[in-house]
């Protein structure tokens, strides 16, 4: 298996002085679910936001190191961030349907990318809503406002919106934190389907979710990568004391 993403000595400090990542190096496998977990403030979300350069919107004081995606350093200022964000899609903790219909939400990114052909757009709507396991629930009301859906449905539409762009990497930042167990199950099931085609990086909202979904797992504590291993090994026999304490629920 190939490393789709290679992170080398990545450090990042925010303008308010908080240090968010300290010298993180790791490789992320293609066609697998890699889970980044650990207590709040550990740098998981910051790392995700580096991968699609969304941190460009935040006041960052200093950063160093590099992130190679398919061998190309995406932190290079010359990188086309729009193209990068089409290749690296992101689902956020709270579903944010844009103030438009379900269909318009799904094709938003494609239209921006210049796709005008109705057949292509319709095809993308159906394909991505099916992949996100929401097609059957919304196919008869695609022109309704997306905000009218339930939270769980909204989140899957948001996932479909990312999938419509046919990205190569999907970042999910606690995508089920606001959802009930049934919706969570549906999103997790969709993830398992997705990893066949995509590189999936997930920040889970609980250790249990991490254990359920991880092919590979990385434990972050105060900006440092403490342990990174095969998911099954990590959650049955962690090597580091800190990891074990966290998984066993001794702190968090």
């Amino acid at each position, binding site marked *: 298996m190939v490393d789709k993403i290679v992170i080398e000595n990545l450090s990042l400090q925010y303008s308010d002085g908080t240090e968010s990542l300290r010298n993180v190096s790791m490789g992320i496998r293609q066609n697998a679910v890699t889970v980044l977990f650990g207590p709040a403030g550990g740098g998981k979300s910051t790392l995700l936001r580096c991968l699609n350069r969304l941190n460009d919107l935040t006041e960052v004081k200093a950063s160093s190191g590099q992130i190679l995606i398919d061998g190309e350093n995406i932190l290079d200022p010359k990188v086309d961030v729009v193209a990068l964000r*089409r290749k690296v*899609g992101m689902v*956020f903790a709270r579903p944010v349907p844009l103030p438009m219909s379900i269909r318009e939400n799904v094709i938003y990114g494609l239209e921006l*990318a210049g796709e005008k052909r109705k057949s292509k757009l319709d095809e993308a709507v159906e394909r991505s809503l099916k992949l996100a396991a929401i097609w059957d629930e919304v196919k008869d009301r695609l022109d309704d406002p997306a905000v009218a859906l339930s939270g769980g449905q909204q989140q899957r539409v948001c996932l479909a919106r990312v999938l419509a*762009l046919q990205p190569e990497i999907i970042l999910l930042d606690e995508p089920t934190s606001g959802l009930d167990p049934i919706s969570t199950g549906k999103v997790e099931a969709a993830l398992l389907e997705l990893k066949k085609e995509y590189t999936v990086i997930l920040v889970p909202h609980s250790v249990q979710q991490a254990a359920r979904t991880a092919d590979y797992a990385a434990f972050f504590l105060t900006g440092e990568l403490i342990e990174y291993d095969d998911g099954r090994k990590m959650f049955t026999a962690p090597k580091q004391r800190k990891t074990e304490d966290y998984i066993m629920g001794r702190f968090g």
Partner: protein
Amino acid sequence: MMKLFARNRHTVQRIGFSLITLMAVVTVLPIVGTVIFILFKGGSAVSWEFLTGFPHDGMRAGGILPAIIGTLYLTIGTAIFSVPLGIAAAIYLAEYAKENRLTRLIRLAIINLAGIPSVVYGLFGLGLFVLFLQFGTSILAASLTLSIMTLPVIISTAEESLRSVPQSFRTVSISLGATRWQTIRRIVLKEALPGILTGVILGLERAAGETAPILFTGAAFFLPRLPGSPFDATMALPYHLFVISTQVPEMPIQIQYGTALVLLVFVLTMNVVATVIRSRARARRQW
């Protein structure tokens, strides 16, 4: 003892609430009173002939068409300059500007611009547009002067409504490969539009009713025909009202109040439109 005290507190509260309610009612009275008074006094003067005719007999008879058309022209002229400039400035301040010395200076200027007395705008317009740029006493010069006066209202309300669009929309849009400008055009402006329109209308409404800024820059005492180009002077409702109330002896009082009524209806109509836009948008809003 305790019981008495408690009852006493309720009484104090009841008196307090009654006073506050009374004050709220009192604030409404002058507005309602003004409208009723003007309607009563001027209603009889307003007729088709009054709205579509020219003044004659030294403005003591006839209609006020040139003043109505003039105010319409001035309002449109003001909109042409102040709306694009104001919205562009608001977009810059709300979406692009970083907090630094330059933006603080711009904000300070806008706040101060809003506090300048309107007659000072008039003098400024006379100096800059009428004399220095040689536009003469004209619709153009008056519109530009009114635009400067209107800008702070438009900029601050537009900036406010741009800022009220949730940040998460911007983040999501950008994460889907939109540029900043695409995000503004397709999401932020669309959602902020009703608020912006309300601010625009309120600003223009103020411009339509002002006398001092147009006094030296574009208003005419009397014109026998309608203005033919932006470089012509024009009659205007607020200035006409000032003229017939103070400058013309033996002026029939109904004509004065009739003119006031027309101006009032003009401005209140704009107000109603703004309110309708705002409430309809609020009902439709998806966040």
